[in-house]
């Protein structure tokens, strides 16, 4: 986690060396945080979905802890995507928000994972099973979020932009992706440890009552 934070501290210095995009200028550098956060939002939804599937199949608490941690990280990284995107759009498109496929589907997916966390918080006993079904549903939506720019006509750039980047922009981007991945792994492991501690606490309270 400390390594990830150090990498993230270095990210603005790396991004500062990258050239600005021709039509948008300085604001295009939002890209270097927006894209890695979006990648991890989608990846984390898959982690949550697969862990939920494993939990539904075998009912092992470890899988449930991973699903819960991944769902929280979808909400955290999704929030970064949903805030940095409109800041970029305001300069690039002249508006903060457009009700087009990519943006709406990202918002819907984010709200599904917020619903997952609300269910975990207030659902009472057995909520983890219902939440696992919601996690699966969230995972099912995420490929549509990714492909939406290719399937429908949207204002959002398509998925072909990343492979076309020159190395002067691609290298800082992949540095930021690496920093975000390290951060993601660190946060996921920490959150799983907290969930394990919470489960141990619940067992200890039961032992105290007996």
């Amino acid at each position: 986690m400390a390594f990830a934070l150090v990498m993230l501290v270095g990210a603005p210095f790396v991004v500062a060396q990258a050239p600005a995009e021709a039509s948008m200028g300085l604001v295009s550098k939002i890209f270097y945080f927006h894209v890695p956060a979006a990648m991890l939002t989608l990846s984390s939804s898959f982690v949550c979905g697969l862990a939920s599937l494993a939990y539904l199949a075998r009912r092992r608490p470890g899988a449930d802890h991973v699903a819960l941690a991944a769902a929280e990280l979808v909400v955290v990284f999704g929030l970064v995507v949903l805030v940095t995107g409109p800041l970029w759009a305001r300069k690039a498109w002249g508006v903060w928000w457009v009700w087009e496929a990519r943006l709406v589907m990202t918002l819907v997916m984010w709200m599904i994972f917020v619903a997952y966390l609300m269910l975990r918080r207030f659902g009472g006993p057995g909520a983890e099973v219902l939440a696992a079904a919601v996690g699966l549903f969230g995972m099912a939506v995420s490929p549509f979020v990714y492909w939406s720019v290719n399937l429908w006509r949207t204002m959002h750039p398509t998925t072909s932009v990343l492979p076309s980047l020159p190395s002067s922009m691609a290298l800082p981007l992949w540095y930021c992706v690496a920093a975000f991945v390290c951060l993601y792994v660190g946060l996921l492991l920490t959150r799983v440890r907290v969930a394990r501690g919470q489960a141990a606490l619940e067992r200890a309270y039961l032992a105290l009552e007996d």
Partner: protein
Amino acid sequence: MPGLGRSCCRMGLVAGLAAFASRTVFAFQGASEFVPADQLGQNTVPGGVLLLVAYAVAWLAVVVYVWILWRRAGRIERELGDIAAKLAASGRRPD
């Protein structure tokens, strides 16, 4: 139900922010009156400010989440310590 009250406050805050954001968004949905050409260009936002806000939000989200995790872990550790002490006092061995 103090947890529910806190969550309602948080949801109220998010709903307020969403209402403010949507008001701002709809303010930019097309023109509602004639704007002379020589008054155009007042709608420009400096890119540097947007960039700084974007990076600040990303950092803030991470820092707040790490702080929440740290607080949760501390509370769990404290409560586990208390229960272990109670179990030891009652002559039982904590697992």
